[in-house]
């Protein structure tokens, strides 16, 4: 019987680059490593037929390497019922959560992440409340149904972010422009370098409101500890720490990053990203700038249409040349 001695589990394989995949290929073909089981996870809709991962899977199959595809799919109604019952401490009385679970399942299609986010939003909006008298969770099915009639999961995420403090919203907007995985110090550098008034003007729809609002807290915010915002975002499950690097944070889910990005009005996104790129160019030391070259250039390119100064255009063109040459060398 096949009994693996070494099991390797790899998540988010869609991000794998060709070098990593080649290494994986080399390991999987190494006859000195017997009984190796590699488990990879990826979302089917994010790996097309021409994705390097899909190509390598085909190559391995042609080589006779045994590959077993296990389609996870979404949670069934029974699964969601169990999940909701467990989340509410009602495992012994699943019938009591049956209606709630059915509504949640219907709206979220059983996507595990969405189910949890949805339950959390019900709690945040006090549709789901804990009663200390009866020591149990209470909710009104009609209220849940009513809420569901107007909100899809994307809206739920955006609304959740809108409930954050204004500073945390600014932090999460900046972070969303830096990618699914980003350097915390880069976010802090940007948020500290742009005044709160400017930050809100650049990333909010209602400038008048935001400016008058920020006038009151400018001095406070000058001393604001950005760590509080980061903590808030981590507590809410919006950001997660990366185990290997204390400076790196990742969005809890790419849908959260999308929702955070959607907080920035469409008409201001390019200018906002360009501003972030310019700040990073100005503030990062040469080594950090080199390691963040692709991000900085990509951000600055977003607002290239607004550049009127010829010197700046030439300088950005040269940065693009450097970035292009650098990425070519990696291939």
């Amino acid at each position, binding site marked *: 019987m096949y009994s693996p001695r070494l099991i390797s589990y790899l998540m988010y394989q869609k991000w794998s*680059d*060709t070098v990593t995949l080649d290494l994986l290929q080399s390991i999987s073909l190494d006859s000195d490593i017997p009984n190796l089981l590699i488990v990879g996870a990826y979302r089917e809709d994010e790996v097309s037929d*021409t*994705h*390097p991962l899909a*190509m390598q899977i085909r190559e391995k199959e042609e080589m006779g390497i045994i590959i077993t595809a296990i389609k996870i799919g979404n949670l069934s109604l029974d699964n969601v019922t169990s999940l909701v019952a467990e989340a509410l401490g009602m495992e012994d009385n699943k019938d009591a959560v049956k209606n709630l679970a059915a509504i949640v399942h219907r709206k979220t299609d059983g996507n595990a992440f969405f189910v949890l986010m949805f339950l959390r939003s019900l709690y945040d909006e006090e549709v789901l409340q804990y009663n200390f008298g009866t020591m149990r969770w209470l909710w009104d099915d009609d209220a849940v149904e009513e809420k569901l009639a107007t909100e899809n999961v994307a809206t739920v995420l955006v609304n959740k972010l809108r409930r954050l403090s204004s500073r945390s919203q600014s932090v999460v907007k900046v972070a969303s422009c830096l990618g699914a995985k980003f350097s915390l110090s880069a976010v802090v550098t940007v948020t500290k370098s742009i005044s709160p008034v400017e930050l809100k003007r650049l990333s909010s729809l209602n400038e008048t409101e935001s400016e008058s609002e920020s006038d009151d807290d400018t001095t406070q915010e000058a001393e604001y500890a950005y760590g509080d915002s980061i903590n808030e975002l981590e507590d809410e499950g919006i950001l997660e720490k990366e185990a290997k690097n204390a400076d790196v944070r990742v969005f809890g889910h790419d849908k959260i990053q999308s929702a955070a990005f959607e907080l920035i009005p469409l008409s201001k996104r390019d200018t906002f990203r360009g501003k972030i790129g310019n700040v990073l160019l100005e503030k990062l030391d040469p080594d950090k700038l080199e390691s963040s070259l*692709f991000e900085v*250039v990509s951000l600055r*390119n977003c607002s*290239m249409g607004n*550049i009127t100064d*010829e010197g700046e*255009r*030439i300088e*950005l*063109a*040269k*940065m*693009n*040349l450097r*970035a*292009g*040459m650098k*990425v*070519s060398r*990696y*291939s």
Partner: protein
Amino acid sequence: MYSSDNRLISYHKLKASKNAAFDSAAVYFKAGYKLLGPSGWGIDQQTMLTLCSQGANACFLSGDLDTMNKLLAEVLSQDISIQDKFVAYEVNCLAIYAAGDFMGAIDTAIDVRRQLGLSTFKNKPVNTLIIIKEFIKTKRTVGSRTAEEIANLPDLTDERVVMGQRMLELLFTSSIDVSKNLKLEDLCLVK
């Protein structure tokens, strides 16, 4: 320069999926080109030349043939040296080869060698006796040198000759495809 055809697109899809990094590289080169605009050659010729040449290469490898052609046309229409145009010519040659026009690739490579001022030959069939004669000449030149000895020969430093050798590589590859019945040794007639 070459217009799109199915074979070329298939080739590029395969290459691009293997080398997705060139997609990103192409984005940067194109952005730099856009930033400098049509007047870029007058503003900063060297940056413009590298953006267009390397951009054409990245576009070739990522399958964006229209942009590749546009960038190649930019470089090849400039009043600059053949050495400056070399990368663009090389990409052009590869694109012609990838499209299956092996004879066209040979013609282009011969033309580039001629522009570099290197000895070359005409692209026309030769009889077997000439092939054998040139083969013997090559064999004598190599003599009893071992593979290690050949590998340890000094590196070429003359940029012009290096470029010419790179064109020879393309000539070899295209020649094999043109005359499938030729043996590799026969191709040693190329000086």
